[in-house]
């Protein structure tokens, strides 16, 4: 089946990201496809490229990126939720006259329409919230 996940919890603050990643691994192991993970509300903080967790803790961002590399899962971040929270890719940073950027590929800033598409287009959408 084609799955999509919606993640709404900030990494390290809530268990949402951990639960979603564990669920992702299990569904892939059962032969399903994970089309995309959509990050909304505080879930957008998962895309913060500078995250530097202690070495004895899971590196959530690396785990997200591995989903993209190994399975082609798209990592889509709600742009409206991201901008107000300080998560800008190079293009948005330029557009807002800011130097530097805080989001990079494979995370992509995108509109909420992608969430609706994923929710209606995939066979299953599973939400992990704080």
């Amino acid at each position, binding site marked *: 089946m084609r799955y999509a996940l919606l993640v709404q919890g900030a990494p390290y603050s809530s268990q949402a990201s951990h639960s979603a990643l564990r669920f992702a691994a*299990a569904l892939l192991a059962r032969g399903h496809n994970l089309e995309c993970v959509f990050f909304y509300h505080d879930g957008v903080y998962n895309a913060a490229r500078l995250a530097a967790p202690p070495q004895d803790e899971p590196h959530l961002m690396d785990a997200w990126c591995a989903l993209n590399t190994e399975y082609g899962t798209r990592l889509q971040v709600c742009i409206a939720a991201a901008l107000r929270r300080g998560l800008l890719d190079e293009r948005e940073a330029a557009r807002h006259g800011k130097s530097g950027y805080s989001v990079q590929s494979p995370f992509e800033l995108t509109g909420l329409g992608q969430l609706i598409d994923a929710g209606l287009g995939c066979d*299953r959408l*599973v939400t992990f919230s704080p």
Partner: protein
Amino acid sequence: MILHILNRSPGSSLVYREALAGMGPEDRLLLIEDGVQGALTSQARHFESLGGRLFALREDLASRGLEGRCDASVQVVDVDGFVVLTEEADKTVSWF
């Protein structure tokens, strides 16, 4: 059949009431994260209307040291079982 997923404990959050209100007679409820507290023998009465349709995630029970304290009415599933529950359901609804 719809799979409802609840990640809050009935001891601190009242969202479990809305989760129950949203459930049809065939729907299932899976307790995850802090929600697994609801699977304790002392707490499971909040979900007694569900009969055999109450599930709890084994890994979240185990990491909290609660695996041995589940009520007999609760079906404990691991994360593969969680995926199976989503396969069997028409859709999922998360309550938090």
